């Protein structure tokens, strides 16, 4: 349970996922933000107007999945690093998971990394497709991972294989 061990339950995760039909249409953001805390940068970051305006700063983000185009602008503005983008249409058996990442060394494009779930366990091998690190992201890098499709809602972190 999130409040006891920092891991959201399956029910919590399901409650914020886009409908299966939306996933067939390309990349979409998922805000894994389960607590009412005073924070609203995600709303201000979305140029598509896909994150509903906050009446109260303690509200949780509500994503309009039809308006969201999966651009990922919100990902590097979220102080909790709690927003991910999933593209289930990447290939026949792989999905793309975009992960906010603030560790060194950064992986290289093409590198195979260990994909990790919300509990910190290794669940798959993943290939690095892109490493986004623009100035506007302000040191929160976004790493695109190609993961087995059945793991796209599990993989939320990764480990570079080389020993630091």
């Amino acid at each position, binding site marked *: 349970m999130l409040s006891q061990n920092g891991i*959201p339950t399956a029910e919590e995760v399901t409650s914020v996922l886009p409908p299966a039909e939306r996933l067939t249409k390309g990349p979409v953001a998922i805000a894994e933000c389960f*607590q009412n805390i005073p924070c609203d940068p995600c709303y201000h970051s979305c140029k598509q107007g896909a994150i509903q305006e906050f009446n109260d700063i303690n509200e949780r983000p509500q994503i309009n999945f039809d308006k969201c185009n999966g651009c990922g602008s919100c990902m590097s503005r*979220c102080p909790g690093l709690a927003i991910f983008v999933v593209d289930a249409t990447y290939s026949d058996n792989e999905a793309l998971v975009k992960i906010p990442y603030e560790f060194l060394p950064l992986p290289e494009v093409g590198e195979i990394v260990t994909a*990790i779930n919300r509990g910190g366990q290794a669940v798959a091998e993943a290939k690095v497709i892109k490493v986004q690190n623009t100035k506007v992201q302000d040191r929160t890098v976004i790493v695109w991972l190609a993961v087995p499709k059945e793991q796209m809602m599990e993989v939320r972190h990764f480990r570079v294989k080389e020993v630091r």
Partner: protein
Amino acid sequence: MRQIEIAIVGGGPAGLAAALNASKLGAQVILIDRNDYLGGQLIKQTHRFFGSKQQRASERGIDIALELANEVMANEKIEVLTEATALGHYEDGVLLVEQAGKIMAIKPERFIVATGGAEKTLLFPNNDLPGVYGAGAVQTLVNVFGVKPGKRVLMVGAGNIGVIVSYQLLQAGVEVAAIIEGAPRIGAYWVHAAKVVRAGVPIYTRHTILRAEGEGEVKGAVIAQLDDNWQPIPGTEREIEADVICLSVGLTPLTELLWQAGCQMTFVPELGGNVPFRNEQLETSVPGLYVAGDVSGIEEASAAMMEGALAGINAAASLGYTSDTLTADRQNVLDQLAGLRSGPVGEKIRKGLAQCSL
């Protein structure tokens, strides 16, 4: 004796915001800080802040510190005294300050105390072994000096500081064995907790440290599970290998100057200890003496900046300074503070503040 309109003690987020807001209305300010830099604890906060856009949410503390400090340094109405310690506040309203071995007396018309907080510690056998640190010290080593405190850390306390410092240790390439927390729930924002857990750090709630192990230096710790009455459950003891034990068990307001000045004080556990009574203007029971930030109750840096702004505006306004937007500006800050404290995580603060309002 130096005469000045407003003296501010503490150059952290609250003191910087107070200085900028008071000077903006036209007041002459002296800002005093014992460190050789401005920014207080902000200079160690490499993570993005929560809050609203107006409170610079999503910006990193280190960047906010630099921006505010530069703005203060460039402001002609603000005189900055660094490496200067406020030694005492006397009955006649005189503040004694030591700087570079010399003592000066300052007589301010208004006085804003923004001294922040100090870390609490924890009692357990061997807590004096080298390798037992406070989280603030670990953060200073890692984020200010670029020095690893050790190889493997046991973090005690899963509040925002414990969890954030754990994350920063991971970023520095230090292993974090676990985060233990006596309470049944994680105190930190859950997004922070989720971030360190997926990076491989387990969080054990209802757990405490029984003792540190090692001779001459920390080699590990024995932890145990707690029952509903916070007593260790026999048979649940286990050893955690670590060369650093990092204590992050809360902060307490640094109120010495307020006691000296004769402020009416009260013990409020929700705010971290003894705090001054204050009115909505943030003025204490001593007329002309204002408080802002953690000294008035332990809270987040965003709240400290808002309180600093409020104290700065009110202190300057009480001297007769005004602007066309004064009322609106003040109300804006009050609304933002209320917003920050309005949700479920602000409940403790609201409960605490209700006990020390004048």
